């Protein structure tokens, strides 16, 4: 492998990891509050479409990101209205929200651009080279010549860590995810915390979708989220619900995905399905080897107040 290829591999790792990181960091907040939002996939695809429409309307990638964030937040609001407000089962609600997100984005897309789709070319979110950092050999370009949304992910990891473990709000959030009854007894507004955590998660998933459309693909296609919402949920667990680890896990997953393209480009004569399975196999190996024994928030997926 040449150095150029290695460098490209690293760049691809970060490119593929960034949307996962954004969505997973948001989901980490949601899950720390005891809510598992399986509807993340729906929020990502909504973010992608919102990003595309916003970028077109305002002719600006930045506006697109904001629109994508809003779209993801709206999807999360629907989820929260049912799962947090009404206390419906989070898994079923999330399933429905993903289904609805994929369906409605398709419907809106077709209504706007015709039933047979169109070749959307979007104003993109151009990479920004960070001075000095981007000049670091090998990893400089990969890490520090990326779209602004990638830097958002970098910044969120320590910021969320601080929030979780160094603020009283974070303490309340964690308590709500572990023992909502105890949190409520201490005067914490459990449902409000859960609502806000879910909204933040959806908003970041929306940013992840906008990033996919504007910083990565430069277009929108139906189903272009391609299961990243579910991968992000796995990434949260892989990162043990701890933001810096979640970021690393997302980048690890990005690298494992990038590896498949690298290996295919190298022309190894193996069935390509093997390459496609690499990210999952590597993650399994990582879990078995040294990343196991993570403990989820105890009240994850438990409605509050409890149904009894």
């Amino acid at each position, binding site marked *: 492998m040449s150095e150029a290829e290695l460098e490209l591999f690293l760049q691809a790792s970060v490119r*593929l990891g960034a949307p996962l990181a954004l969505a997973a960091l948001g989901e980490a907040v949601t899950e720390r509050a005891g809510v598992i939002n399986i509807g993340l996939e729906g929020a990502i695809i909504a973010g992608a479409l919102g990003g595309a429409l916003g970028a077109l309307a305002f002719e600006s990638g930045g506006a697109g990101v904001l629109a994508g964030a809003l779209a993801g937040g709206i999807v999360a609001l629907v989820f929260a209205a049912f799962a947090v407000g009404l206390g419906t089962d989070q898994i079923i609600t999330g399933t429905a929200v993903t289904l609805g997100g994929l369906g409605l984005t398709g419907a809106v897309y077709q209504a706007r651009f015709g*039933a047979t*789709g169109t070749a959307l070319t979007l104003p993109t979110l151009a990479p920004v080279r960070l001075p000095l950092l981007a000049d670091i050999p090998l990893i400089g370009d990969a890490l520090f010549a990326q779209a602004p949304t990638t830097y958002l992910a970098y910044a969120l990891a320590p910021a969320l860590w601080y929030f979780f473990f160094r603020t009283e709000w974070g303490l309340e959030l964690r308590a709500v995810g572990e023992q909502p009854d105890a949190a409520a007894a201490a005067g914490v507004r459990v449902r409000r915390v859960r609502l806000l955590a879910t909204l933040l998660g959806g908003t970041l998933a929306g940013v992840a979708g906008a990033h*996919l459309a504007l910083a990565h693909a430069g277009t929108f*296609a*139906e189903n272009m989220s*391609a299961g990243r919402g579910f991968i992000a949920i796995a990434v949260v667990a892989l990162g043990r619900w701890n933001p810096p680890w979640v970021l690393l896990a997302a980048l690890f997953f990005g690298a494992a995905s990038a590896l498949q393209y690298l290996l295919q480009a190298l022309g190894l004569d193996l069935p*390509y399905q093997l390459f*496609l399975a690499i990210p999952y196999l590597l993650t399994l190996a990582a879990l078995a080897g040294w990343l196991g024994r993570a403990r989820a928030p105890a009240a994850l997926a438990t409605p509050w107040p409890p149904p009894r």
Partner: protein
Amino acid sequence: GGDAGPGEGDAPLRVALLTAGPVSDAGWYAGAYEGLLAIRDSLGAEVSHQQTRTPAEFDEAFLAYGSSGYDLVFAHGFEYQDAAMRAGEQFPATTIVVSGGGRVAANVIPFIFELEEGSYLAGMLAAGMSESGTIGMVGGVEIPPVQGTFRAFEAGARAVDPDVEILEAFTGNWDDVAAAKEAAAAQLARGADVIIHNVDAASFGVFQAVREVVGMGRTAWALGMNRDQNDVAPDVILGSAVIRIPEAFLEVALALQARGLGGEPIYEGASEGVVDFVLNPALSSRVPPDLVGSMDAARERIRSGELAVPRVPFVETESGIR
């Protein structure tokens, strides 16, 4: 939908379309849907479309259309072929046309688009335009139409430059634009400078990857597939291998109305004018005239049957597999 109008005269033709993916892909399925609408508009046919998500739905869909008396069902994908054979037996009055299918019965007709003929020309162009001597192919899922176009692309390229190196990658699906982009980017990094795709809706990722390296000062090109994508990324797409699916569908419907389809596979290729390779007018000046000349010559030889483009034979007939 609704009931077939009780006719003074002939009841309208009833035509259905089955696709295994969204028709908003601006590609393979979109073409079929446009064909269906063309049939509706030109022939006054009553039309219906269903997108299936799994092979388990195939029999059900045929059952629904067969039992409610549809005349013609376009099953737009090879995967429908087995269920089509079962349905053909059960509903003799319904004609089923299976795009890319491999099995034939009196009323089950494989509909073969010889896109190979277009991608052979694309291969010629790719090898002729490549400065690095490396070109790439990015596929979605490795299915016969994709294999066919890629083998023909290789043959066309080798015809121009026997030593050309050809990379191949698959992303495993048709929707993941980001994955298609990364696959193309990896090939570009390995030195490929002309990339063709067969990833349907995700093709934009390929174009985007090419655009980005061009933006960094390299020379690289992309090639479109399935439909004329030249205006999608007019700055990087040299040309497209196209199938004129809507026209072909309309022709099939007309033929059915006029005389029936008669249990024979339908081949639509360059000689029928359904498959072609179209240069991007915006960039045609960049293509050396003698390359254009040899492509034109090849086109003529294909049309006349003189040049046999490699194909993956798969239609099972009494005389063997063709």
